């Protein structure tokens, strides 16, 4: 393992982390402000990717597609909040899990009905294709570098939104005391719809950017959703800062684990078996990380006090 390879893998971990942050921030906001467990968050990720692929295919412009995908995911989020989620705030978590799981099935089959079961074609825009040379002689794909940059910008933007704006103040107030903010005359249902749409839009943006790297297909959101849940549990449910730290931690540990563990096992095992065992343990690594963190910090790293 050379230094430059290690540096490149760290960047890969960072890139995975920023993407997870986009997913996890919406999830943790919705839980923090409304107390809702939303399993259908992965469907907004898928919506963003499909609309982006479709609009990019029609207009030929990736950026128009990206904008359309993000807005479409936010709009679908607002619509779902208005039609379904609103009725769930006062129910217990089991009802929320059941209802949002039903939404996953509806979204998946609906998307299949609209677009068919073959994956859609979406590619990295020409202006971000290819790779650049970084310090330590690392050659790194430009698009992934752009994703890292975008993730950092969005993290800063979210921080400013929540700490400096009136909307952010209301979100923080909503996290602290839901009844009181309603009693003070804030239009709580509009606030909820806005927060939900914001989270859905961020998920859609994540799906759209990742769709260009991976394949745009039905069910693409659920594996990411599981990771996003791990992230918010590690970070402390309801905490944006926790989501950021948790996402970067999970991204880096997962990436380095996949690369380093097989090499570690090769020290005392036959190469082919070591690859298999290493890969198997690497796939468990983030869950082991989560378990260890929860032993010492049962409410996550940045637990929100209620």
């Amino acid at each position: 393992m050379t230094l430059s390879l290690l540096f490149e893998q760290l960047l890969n971990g960072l890139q995975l982390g920023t993407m997870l942050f986009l997913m996890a921030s919406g999830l943790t906001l919705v839980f923090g402000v409304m107390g809702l467990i939303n399993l259908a968050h992965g469907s907004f990720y898928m919506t963003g990717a499909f609309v982006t692929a479709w609009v990019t295919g029609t207009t030929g412009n990736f950026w128009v597609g990206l904008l359309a995908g993000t807005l479409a995911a936010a709009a679908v989020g607002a619509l779902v909040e208005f039609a379904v989620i609103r009725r769930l705030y006062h129910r217990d978590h089991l009802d929320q899990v059941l209802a949002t799981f039903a939404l996953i099935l509806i979204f998946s089959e609906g998307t299949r009905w609209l677009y068919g079961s073959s994956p859609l074609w979406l590619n990295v825009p020409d202006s971000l294709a290819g790779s650049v040379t970084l310090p330590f002689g690392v050659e790194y794909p430009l698009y992934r570098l752009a994703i890292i940059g975008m993730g950092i910008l969005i993290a800063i933007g979210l921080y400013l939104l929540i700490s400096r704006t009136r909307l952010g103040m209301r979100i923080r107030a909503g996290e602290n005391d839901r009844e009181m903010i309603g009693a003070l005359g804030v239009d709580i249902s509009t606030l909820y719809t806005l927060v939900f749409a914001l989270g859905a839009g961020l998920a859609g943006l994540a799906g759209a950017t990742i769709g260009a790297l991976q394949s745009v297909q039905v069910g693409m959101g659920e594996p990411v959703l599981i990771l996003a849940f791990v992230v918010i549990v590690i970070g402390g449910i309801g905490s944006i800062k926790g989501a950021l730290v948790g996402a970067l931690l999970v991204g880096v540990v997962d990436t380095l684990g996949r690369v380093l563990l097989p090499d570690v096992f090769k020290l005392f095992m036959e190469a082919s078996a070591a690859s298999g065992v290493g890969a198997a343990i690497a796939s468990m690594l983030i869950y082991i990380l989560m378990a260890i963190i929860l032993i010492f910090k049962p409410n996550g790293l940045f637990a929100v006090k209620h």
Partner: protein
Amino acid sequence: MKKVMNAGLGLLMATAIAAPTQAENVKIGMITTLSGGGAHLGVDARDGFMLAIEQAGRDDVEVLIQDDAQKPDVAKSLADEFVQRENVDIMTGIIWSNLAMAVIPSVVRQGTFYLSVNAGPSDLAGRLCHENYFNVAWQNNSLHEAMGEYMSTEGFENAFILAPNYPAGTDALEGFKARYTGELANEVYTQLGQTDYAAEIAQIRASGADSVFYFLPGGMGIAFMKQYAGSGVDIPVYGPAFSFDEIIIGAIGDAAIGVRNTSQWAYDLDNAANQTFVSSFREKHGRTPTLYASQGYDTARLILAALEVAHPDDKDAFREALRAADFDSVRGDFRFGTNHHPIQDIYVREIVASGDGVTNQLVGVAVEDMQDVYVDQCSM
């Protein structure tokens, strides 16, 4: 809940399978994957199969088609339904090896013929081979083995090999290593369903390998190839046709150009049966057939050829007729080994630009008269 679902399923099947039959008719039961992430394989196998049946114009051959949704338990209960209630003579259609293992051994033991359009798990070629079971596609390892041999003859000596960490993935890498003579730069198992390959691609770049072999079916392969092309690594890539069928490379786009893959069939193979098949398939469905469609087509044509000789009720005569494989396969020469698995040429295809998209083009033969390695374990 389960009871309701079972009742619903029963109703569905009762309506789907209500057509009365006469004694002389031949009933074929097809269980295949028509929904879910792996649906395009089953859809193509079905469309190829039905095309051959329609072309034959025989109205005494009845085909019942059911969707297994890629679930072994669904496939198993559909198979019981076909064998016990419908008394089908022949069964076919299963795509995935884990479903095949759940269904085929019991079906053939009950005296029904089974012809596999796709799945070729090693047990059915060796230890559990059966006189009523025929595989018209390949044994699972074949295309990987052929690629191992092809890359050796091409002079590659330091390959980086990659597959998901599950049984078919380990089989793929074992198959590859069986005939590959060079060194391995690295052997990496990824998670099943993994979609981000940045870490593996960085390893490939740093490994100093002279070639990459990978088996990543479905969405995994699309994600890998797109990211690989964007990474600036220019080590040549090889794999089996499962990673590069026409539908997958359509989703990868230009990034797939130049990749070579092994297949037992290519749509531009020059023989009369294949030309008829490809042109009529395109005319009927408006797309280029995949290898799965060719396998469905060949399976139906093998059945039709055997029906010319005997009715499946005369089991011994029908079995002999199947074994003779007296039909013009779209892949050229075709015959069965003693374990009822094909002995056939494995071809090499290269992905090239064509019109708006990309397509596979025949390059040459990787291995002539390839037979699977499990034939010795079969007691037939």
